[in-house]
């Protein structure tokens, strides 16, 4: 399908270990004023760009470097904060500062400004599969030569209004929600500047489950697993580490989709981290790369009760 894409940097953090330490001063100045999800993205991306040797925070925008970020909820908290003030005080209380941030590409835009990234600037949402869907789109952009390197991954922030919405039945996560950001620097494998490679993305596929309670539930996830393996040129028997992602209520569906994959190691990072939505898939990939022996194939899943599903196959690098 496409050239394999190298991971030359990674950065991840959860709400608990969040810090601006180590970021360039100009980036910290922007970060302290930003909404929560943007703060998480700036901190994680700063680490990833530094690891890849691309953490330049001044000069003209670099047209061959871009961003593809996945987020389930993006500016949800900002929307709610803006709307609450507007409901309370009417049009005179509507905040231009908050309204300007009621776009789910705000974190991507801030990241572009902070690190002078003038190439593709993309954010997308696919529920709790947003992270792997973003990595898939980024893989297409990099392998077709439309960018030299992309910061790609996902993030979501938590707050009272989002937790209230979840509790009111907005989305069944089956686990406590948590906030996190996890991003990678992706480059074409043959152009990776000789840098240490944490891993190589070999295949990604995204799909959908239109009826999670229906007789064909699981077909969408099974198809993306098959497609990702096929794109990677891998047999299911080659997979050494699988990252499970389904909410407990969809565990059977995931098990059916994985029926042909007899991996010796199955990781459940959400049991420790909680449901991190847009960051879940990228965090799963990090966990898999850390657990796999060098050169081994890993299979990472994203499964959301919204119906969004995705699968990614990667080869663990020497530097993982």
């Amino acid at each position: 399908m496409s050239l394999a894409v190298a991971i030359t940097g990674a950065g991840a953090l959860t709400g608990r270990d969040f810090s601006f330490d180590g970021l360039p001063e100009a980036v910290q100045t922007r970060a302290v004023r930003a909404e929560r999800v943007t703060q998480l993205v700036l901190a994680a991306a700063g680490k990833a760009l530094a690891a890849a040797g691309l953490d330049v925070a001044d000069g003209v925008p670099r047209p061959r470097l871009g961003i593809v970020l996945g987020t389930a909820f993006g500016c949800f908290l900002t929307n709610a904060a803006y709307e609450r003030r507007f409901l309370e005080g009417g049009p005179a209380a509507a905040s231009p500062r908050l309204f300007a941030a009621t776009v789910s590409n705000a974190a991507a835009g801030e990241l572009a400004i902070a690190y002078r990234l003038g190439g593709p600037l993309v954010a997308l949402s696919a529920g709790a599969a947003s992270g792997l869907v973003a990595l898939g789109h980024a893989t297409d952009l990099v392998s077709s030569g439309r960018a030299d390197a992309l910061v790609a991954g996902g993030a979501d922030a938590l707050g009272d209004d989002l937790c209230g919405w979840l509790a009111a039945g907005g989305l069944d996560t089956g686990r406590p929600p948590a906030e996190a950001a996890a991003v990678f620097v992706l480059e074409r494998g043959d152009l990776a500047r000789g840098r240490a490679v944490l891993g190589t993305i070999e295949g990604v596929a995204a799909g959908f489950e239109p009826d999670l309670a229906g007789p064909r539930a699981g077909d969408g996830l099974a198809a993306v697993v098959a497609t990702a393996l096929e794109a990677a040129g891998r047999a299911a028997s080659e997979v050494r580490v699988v990252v499970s992602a389904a909410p407990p209520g969809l565990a059977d569906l995931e098990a059916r989709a994985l029926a042909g994959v007899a991996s010796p190691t199955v990781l459940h990072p959400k049991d420790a981290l909680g449901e991190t939505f847009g960051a879940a898939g990228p965090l799963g990939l990090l966990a898999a790369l850390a657990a796999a022996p060098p050169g081994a194939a890993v299979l990472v899943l994203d499964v959301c009760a919204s119906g969004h599903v995705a699968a990614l196959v990667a080869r663990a690098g020497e530097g993982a």
Partner: protein
Amino acid sequence: MSSRAAVITGCGAVSPLGVGVRALWEGLLAGRTAVAPIARFPAEDLTPRNAAEVREVGAADPDRAGAFALAAATEALADAGLDPRALDARRVGVALGTTLGGMLLLERWLAGDARPPAEMAAIPYYGPAVRLARSLGCRGPVATPQLACASGTHAIALAADWVRAGRADVVLAGGADLLCRFVVAGFNCLRATADAARPFDAARRGLVLGEGGAILVVEEAGHAARRGAAARARLLGVGAAGDATHMTAPDREGRGAARALAAALTDAHTPPAAVSFVSAHGTGTPYNDAMEAVAITRVFGRRAVPVDSIKGAIGHTLGAAGAFEAILCAQVLAEARIPPTAGLVTVDPACQGLDLVVGAARTHAVTVAVSSSSGFAGTNAALVLARA
């Protein structure tokens, strides 16, 4: 991968000019504007309070964007001669941009109106795409591009990428957005709005909001050919680029928009001189239109290509705008007519570098058309379409 190509085989639109692509096209050709005082929800305390509302669809549906998307998709599928249930569901996807999604439901919930879980679930931006994907029974990729006011354009770009990379054979791609108090008060408090949209006019004062849904069937060329379907247009190239300068104000020099245009032309293997129509973002704000004049002139040269904006007619439909404008491009390619820019009377000196279509529709054979969009957070996206 390079052997696969994307074509557009169907279009559907629910716009303030009426239901259907025909109503949109005829209204645009006639230079009509659908802008009027907001009638569908209380707006007496909002200033300005003119907008372009959809009157025929979704009146009782609290997920208004989803209702627009479903109606537009139904027309697009019929236009393409496709029954999605007859396709391999794993090869059918949805890429649907929106900037508001289930915002009416969020407004009601935060105002204390408890809603059933099914309605709560429709609040996030991914809600309308999920609703459309469920109605189609699709099992291919489903995503909601989040590029602010360039979301509809990037939805079509994402669909083209999925089709060309082999991720899907048929993608329902486009955008849907709605008018509500949240967004009207928001743009008002930014002082970005006016009573009339006058793109590129010397007297322009700001944008006027609109609403609607626009869906295109983006299909793999061989898949369309095998079932004997005629392409409405070919989707030759897509591009995206960030300004990396400011979160809300466009780069005055139009460098990000120019980069997105250049990227789309490179992807299309098409030189700027081959382009014979540009659908501009053309919001009617002082900064956007001046920026775009710089960007378009930078890429195509001075007064080298006819330019039009439809936002004077249907308002700024936000996440749907780029999808409406892609349908405009397909219509211009097929009909060899370019609608006038409604609301434009006296071209601003800052926009004199553009060959704007003013007053009446212009008959003009177009072989390659380009659509350009920009949005908050410094995002820009562009499409290159060619006559089938």
